[in-house]
């Protein structure tokens, strides 16, 4: 078992076109560091010195990680992490 990370279209240039990749770690920060070892430059697109980038949303099993401790959010095998760009949404 590992943690599945779903990658948005715009970032698939970093994952050889893969829609989802697998990684490991005890926290989101560790998971991203693990991925960065294999997908060079990916982590830098997701985080900066202040933490998660403003227009990047990351969901742990469909829940926004900003409410789960951000980069320190605990993750474990079997979890699904979804990365999405922030959009204005739909029918407003």
């Amino acid at each position, binding site marked *: 078992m590992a943690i599945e990370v779903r990658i948005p279209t715009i970032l698939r240039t970093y994952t050889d076109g893969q829609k989802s990749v697998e990684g490991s770690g005890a926290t989101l920060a560790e998971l991203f560091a693990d991925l960065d070892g294999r997908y060079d430059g990916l982590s830098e697109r997701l985080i900066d010195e202040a933490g998660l980038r403003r227009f990047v949303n990351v969901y742990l099993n469909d*829940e926004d990680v900003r409410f789960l401790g951000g980069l320190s959010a605990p993750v474990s095998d079997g979890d699904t992490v979804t990365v999405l760009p922030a959009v204005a949404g*739909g*029918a407003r």
Partner: protein
Amino acid sequence: MRYDSLLDSLGGTPLVGLPRLSPSPAVRLWAKLEDRNPTGSVKDRAAFYMVAAAEKDGRLSPGATILEPTSGNTGISLAMVASLRGYKLICVMPENTSEERRELLGAYGATIVSSPAAGGSNEAVRMAKEMAARNPDWVMLYQYGNEANARAHYETTGPELLADLPEITHFVAGLGTTGTLMGTGRYLREQRPGVQIVAAEPRYGELVYGLRNLSEGFVPELYDESVLTSRFSVASADALRRTRELLHAEGMLAGISSGCVLHAGLQLAAKAHEAGERADIALLIADGGWKYLSTGAYSGTLAEAEARLEGQLWA
């Protein structure tokens, strides 16, 4: 109940129990039926408040043209109030929105400018901002950043909920402009400090997120993360399934965004039930299902409905 005019009948919507979907008598789900507003959606509250505020501060005067990026309900609400008050309305909306919305906007006399489907509402917002810059005499109420949007909910939705459900533990609503959650959330937090304010956000197909650079993303100016306690991303398939569940279990024909809200609400309910905690969870039902019939959301298999919805803005 008697009102002087349609505009006067804004708000005061019913809060209706969902006995079949609630896990136990101690964990109850409640639906606030915002389709019972003048044009059939929660957006009437924001639209009427934004117009009233612009009239009060002199930005809107008779004969004015209103411009707004909207793919649906806000446009319909604005179109109705604009026609009554003698304003012209131009809506910038993504081309991948349902046919019914275009028909409705046209019926109220609004002009529609289409923005490309790829990029969703981000693109509509960008186009509207450009058009506003080129036409300085047009008035853009700009629902994503207009304080009157959130204030409408602080002054109406919030107090209505608390009056009907003083024991409220959770409030769940869709996250778009964020106005509903910000206004209602602030009010409820002031009155009930432990209340949970939960956002349910639609997760669309890949087309909607576009190929844009991540630095060009969009977060509404109204959004204040500190008002929320959690935020769920709900996939189209889950939203559709829950929309049908609401229809079949409770008889409510709601829009697809309400399926999204129900999905988050049911997770909160299950959590409270497992923990043996009491919960009274209010779900905001933003509109009815009528405007979405052409999407096929309510008929055929779920897989078919999901395929038809791919690439559409359903909430």
